């Protein structure tokens, strides 16, 4: 399995899980990407920005592709020892380090606010500033 972010960064998580979580005061659909503990946490932190997560494609080993839009709210990035093999009568449980990056979906209201903010472009603001300078 691999995932592809909006900026074409490709990453290879061990597992992707989904679920509803309460993040930043809202109940949100959340995708969790689980990487080996040996992965570079700083690189993952840099990769999973809001901008890069506007579109996340999850591509299965058989080529099936699922695209998830607007999972831009960072819920967590943690490195923890997790149980990968449960204990049995014959053996103790096996634990390994895993890095989990969780990204939650932006709400409808947040999307509308973002569109409102971006409707006033930098060029328009620059022009307004210059007009103010000129009319001083």
């Amino acid at each position, binding site marked *: 399995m691999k995932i592809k972010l909006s900026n074409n960064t490709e990453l290879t998580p061990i597992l992707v899980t989904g679920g509803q979580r309460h993040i930043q005061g809202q109940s949100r659909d959340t995708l969790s990407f689980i990487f080996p503990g040996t992965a570079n946490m700083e690189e993952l932190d840099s990769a999973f920005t809001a901008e890069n997560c506007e579109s996340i494609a999850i591509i299965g080993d058989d080529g099936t592709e699922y695209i998830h839009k607007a999972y831009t709210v960072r819920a967590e990035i943690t490195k923890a020892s997790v149980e990968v093999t449960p204990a049995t009568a014959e053996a103790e449980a096996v634990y390994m380090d895993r890095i989990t990056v969780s990204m939650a979906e932006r709400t409808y209201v947040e999307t509308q606010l973002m569109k409102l903010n971006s409707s*006033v472009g930098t060029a*328009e*603001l*620059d022009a*307004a*500033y*210059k*007009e*103010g*300078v*000129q*009319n*001083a």
Partner: protein
Amino acid sequence: MSIYTEAMKAQGKADALDLRGRAAGMDGTGIIAEESKAPAFDPAKDYTGWPAGAPVTDEGQVWTLIQPYNAAGYEGRPSTLRALWGLCHTKDPAKAKPWVDPYGTSGMYMTGECYKGADGIVYQALQDNLVHDAAALPGAWEAVA
């Protein structure tokens, strides 16, 4: 007009008035560093209410008002009205402007001040009171960028 553009317009006006009020006590380097706050020269504008030293931009240069006057009553622009407008020079190579011939003692290049040649090279003055560029007086200039 959104509140964003209104706010930016108000900020631009406030910044321009602030620079105009401070400019008389600033050197060319300081004024050019803030040239985005200087309005473009307006040949129809009445500059009689402006303080001496107030900056405008024109023809890729920054000029400061020497003698307040009503531009509507005069033909020309700062580059042709040198008794009314002084030329700013900068010591910052990144902000260097194209060469302009000094007008008498006005606009002479002092030590450290720069101009950008037609070849794109920035030259910095090695001595005061320069009235010739690096092509005419190469020993007085150092290529810096």
